[in-house]
């Protein structure tokens, strides 16, 4: 049952990802990517990481992709005028990506031999546990991430300002 759900979701995610890459209209690309993100959120739920799933939706679907859509609409880039690359270039890209996949799968297969926990703790992905981990072991990285975020915000505002008075 779970396996069937997983396989369905996996096929759908891959399909949506491919559609995202091949869609001519960038807005369609964004929408396919959003759907792909939903399937990934579903994967998270399947992994019993509910908090992660919801945060994933809030952050990616709710914020980042809206930003993409926003910029696309703002720049009015909905025409299918994106110049295409030559066929030989696409072929080279496919070869490169394919070989990367083969090597990563090969590399990661080795990592799979690590011992799995026999009695997995189902509450790993719950807020309480994650909160403890985040604010106990990762306080400093957390703060640093906050500062990074602040810097990115300021940077984005600065970059986006039309005429900067310094």
């Amino acid at each position, binding site marked *: 049952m779970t396996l069937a759900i997983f396989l369905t979701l996996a096929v759908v995610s891959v399909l949506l990802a491919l559609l995202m890459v091949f869609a001519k209209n960038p807005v369609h690309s964004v929408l396919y990517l959003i759907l792909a993100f939903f399937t990934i959120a579903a994967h998270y739920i399947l992994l019993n990481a509910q908090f992660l799933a919801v945060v994933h939706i809030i952050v990616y679907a709710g914020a980042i992709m809206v930003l993409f859509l926003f910029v696309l609409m703002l720049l009015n880039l909905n025409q299918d005028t994106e110049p295409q*690359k030559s066929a030989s*270039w696409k072929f*080279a*890209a496919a070869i*490169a*990506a394919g*070989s*990367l996949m083969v*090597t*990563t799968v*090969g*590399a990661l297969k080795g990592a799979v031999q690590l011992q799995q926990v026999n009695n997995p703790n189902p509450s790993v992905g719950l807020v309480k546990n994650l909160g403890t981990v985040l*604010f*106990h*072991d990762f*306080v*400093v990285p957390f703060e640093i991430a906050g500062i990074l975020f602040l810097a990115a915000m300021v940077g984005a505002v600065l970059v986006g300002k039309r005429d900067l008075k310094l």
Partner: protein
Amino acid sequence: MNTLVPFIPFLPLIGFAINGLFGNRLSKNAVGMIGSGVLLLSLLLTVACFNQLASGGAIQVNLYPFLAVDNLRINFGFLIDQLSVWMMLIVTGVGFLIHVYSIGYMHDDAGFYKFFAYLNLFIFSMLLLIMGDNFVMLFFGWEGVGLCSYLLIGFWYENREYGKAARKAFIMNRIGDLGLLLGIFLIYRTFGSLDYGVVFGQLQTGTFDHSVITTICVLLFIGAMGKSAQIPLYTWLPDAMAGPTPVSALIHAATMVTAGVYLVARCNGMYSLSHEASSFVATIGLATSLLAALIGLRQNDIKKVLAYSTVSQLGLMFLALGMGAYTTAIFHVTTHAFFKALLFLAAGSVIHGLGGEQDIRNMGGLRKHMPITFWVFLIGTFAISGFPFLAGFFSKDEIFAYTFAHGGPIWWAMGATSALLTAVYMCRLFYVTFFGNFRGTHEQEHHMHESPLVMTLPLMLLAALSVVGGFLNTPHFMHLGEGQWLAHWFAGNGLNNAPVIPMAELHLEESTEWTLMLVTTGLVLLVLAAFYFLYQNTRNLPVSDSAQAGVTKVLAHKFYIDEMYDFLFVQPMERLSKLFHYYVDVWFIDGVVNNIGSVIQGFGAYVRKLQNGNIEYYLIGMVAGAVLLVLSMYF
């Protein structure tokens, strides 16, 4: 109580935030009230801590894990034991008085709020340094103190010289910090932890390589040298007089320079294991003390004299530390905090009254115009000189007793000389400033005034403390109340249920002690009396710089130490650099590089076509690289 402990350092931080962010919108009164108010609260909390510790034990508060990498777990935590609570009392208490004083002293300064913000930050850093429960916290405070001293010394940064002094202080401190940092690294390597509890606990039970311990001690002491202005890193301190006078008082009396003493006292378990390191500390301390005292003899800037006196007193403290009398050193830190703060603030009062004049040759006869300042300065002078039953008398006497016991008569004699010199230059300063006739301009005489109450009140309080401060730790042989109270206090059980500073043993007969005491005291009294008459005579007044000759000139130029540093380190470095520049750099390296460069340029012209600025080519190159990288793990 434990939840309130973090507020002790964070209250000044809050004060800093308020004054720093909104200070320019607040009235000067409000800024002053906030700046000193937070410190008063800290002081009260500290007193509460002190009360709790009176029944023994230690308070340890763990705020959150600051770093957790592999085995290294560093907490943002506070440890309050008998030693740190004592230091906290000094820092917050004296610091509070200095804050109050600053309200009056800095009243007409444009950077009033900035000054208070810096002061609060300074206190925060110092409290962090003292209260931290591991070496990393100590290092934070250490660096924070260094930064604040830089900011405060260079407070009047429009003056280039002051800016230079600030930089000098900062760089000298950085040299010492390197030693401290290396010491901390070595501690982690040796003990596998940086927590005081773990490190000192292991010291009591385990056995360690003697040379490693010695190395750690020396490295830590190098850090202390920088912060506490010992040879050879002491030259920044007199230059640090560039800052406003309350800053000098704060740096010299309560904070900053005592950090080194605190560090060594904190690590007393380590130092007592290494005889070599202790001797090193004692030697440096004694040498510093003598050198600074000699220089102090012929300085004409009222603050410079006090600055060298501080260096000299710090030397005495390290002498005590080196002799294993850690309690005595802290005792001297305490009494010194009282009378040095008093002296600096009184000097500030004089400078304030004279509208910025600092040269004692332009003073004189201030006794009549500034009666309060005169009296408190008198108390300060007598206290630092070791006048019987004043604060300095007891602490110095203890230092010499230990010096005699552990170092022998020669060490003792040299130490006593230093104490004697202290009396000499202090008398000179005092008599020249307050007696005789006024030698400044007519205008100065006209404007001369006693300082306002907000300045004199802290002075009087400090004067009172300077009088009674010595009774904290009366020698046992004098049978004055409960003898050696402070030593008993420090010997109380702290962390790990071990004494913070074990009682030092003094194998001297009572009669010997009496003798030593009477000799030094007698000499000091003699000096005090003799110089009164000496400086009544105008012939003996200090002369202008150009008229100095012989030993005086050498002393006035501080043994030409700054010039020596310049000659020994700076100039050879420059000359060597020039040499390298011409022959190695320009001729050899540049030649080689240029020729290689032209070859490569020719080659690059071909390769440039690869670097076409097209992102896609880069990307595919990146992917190919990644593939190769992963593949390389298998072949």
